[in-house]
């Protein structure tokens, strides 16, 4: 039965795909068995990333921005799967998964064949990305999705777990998120392969972008690009999408794979 679902999923049947991802989540399917059954392992192609994590503090606009990025990528004909992670209640285990509210691109009949969006609850995992997301990512790649985007739970300064899963990390920031000292602190920003300062239509965005750039200047090694975007006004989003598509590793996230 599982084999049948996997074959259907590979042929593009979304229901079978959704069921197999649930089976991974619920522990009734093991990724190794699934990959053996599909008969393919995903190998990184010519240095391009296959998995990208989008992370940042709650409310900086990760979902809205991702909606714009997805639209651009889909218009280029790229098949993208998204795992949008939201927190489970530590008290009841329940979750309200609300990322779809912002993702209008999945409602676009011209593009939605190219985009698969799945909401994922953290369940019993702590941190901004549950471990199971790594298996879900592997399955999606093996089933022919070209790129997988992991949108993390709104993350604080030290939520660096996504570095262990994703090839590249994009940190979304917003205006007025503290002074230059905040940008100097250790943690999430250290792992960024690119930084998008969203809400550039609001005051303080350019200043904050400058502070982050300055902070990168003080360090050694590659300096990740820092871009200004406004998801609501659609400015800078296409440029960011183009840049991210061929984004090179800053070498920063590898260092976190301890």
């Amino acid at each position, binding site marked *: 039965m599982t084999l049948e679902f996997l074959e259907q999923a590979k042929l593009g049947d*979304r*229901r079978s795909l*959704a069921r197999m991802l649930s089976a991974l989540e619920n522990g009734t399917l093991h990724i190794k068995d699934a990959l053996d059954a599909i008969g393919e392992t995903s190998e990184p192609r010519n240095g391009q990333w296959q998995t990208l994590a989008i992370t940042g503090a709650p409310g900086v606009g990760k979902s809205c921005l991702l909606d714009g990025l997805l639209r651009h990528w889909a218009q280029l004909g790229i098949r993208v799967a998204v795992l949008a992670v939201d927190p489970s209640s530590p008290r*009841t285990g*329940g*979750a*309200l998964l609300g990322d*779809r509210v912002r993702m209008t691109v999945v409602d676009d009949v011209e593009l939605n064949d190219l985009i698969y969006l799945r909401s994922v609850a953290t369940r019993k995992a702590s941190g901004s990305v549950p471990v199971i997301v790594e298996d879900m990512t592997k399955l999606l790649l093996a089933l022919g999705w070209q790129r997988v985007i992991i949108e993390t739970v709104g993350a604080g300064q030290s939520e660096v777990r996504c570095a262990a899963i994703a090839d590249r990390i994009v940190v979304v920031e917003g205006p007025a998120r503290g002074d230059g000292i905040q940008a100097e602190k250790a943690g999430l920003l250290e792992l960024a392969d690119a930084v998008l300062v969203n809400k550039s239509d609001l005051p303080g965005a350019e200043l904050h972008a400058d502070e982050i750039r300055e902070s990168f200047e003080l360090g050694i090694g590659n300096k990740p690009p820092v871009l200004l975007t406004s998801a609501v006004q659609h400015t800078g989003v296409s440029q960011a999408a183009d840049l991210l598509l061929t984004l090179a590793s800053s070498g920063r996230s590898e260092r976190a794979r301890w």
Partner: protein
Amino acid sequence: MSEPWRIVVAKPGLDGHDRGAKVVARALRDAGNEVIYTGLRRSAQQIVDTVRDEDARFLGLSSLSGAHEHLFPRVCELLKQQGLNDVIVFGGGIIPLGDREPLYACGIRAIFGPGTPTSEILEFVDKATQLENTGVGQESDWHWTSSA
């Protein structure tokens, strides 16, 4: 504990009132379920695509605009067309008693009006998963008798 149910709560059509949907979503969340909220003004097709992609066991439809007679059956029809026969569908909002029988006939297993205690919706969820053939496209005459 067993795995949580995945439940899509959706607002079909041109209806901007989602307090009820949010209250229901919150009650289902607090009962330990994973609730996927679609946001406002979704078409029947968009809702069915969401149920499919999210592998939802339940779909809750909320309507306060009077368009339930058109939109709810359309959603049920599309679910069946796509082979999502085992998804359990329930509805709520401003749905007069006289309008409910045809909706049950489409495979909707409960309609909850204003004043329904949220505990009753949770009881329905439990009951619907205990019984067999409660999916929208499955043969069953059963539906929940709601208090409001």
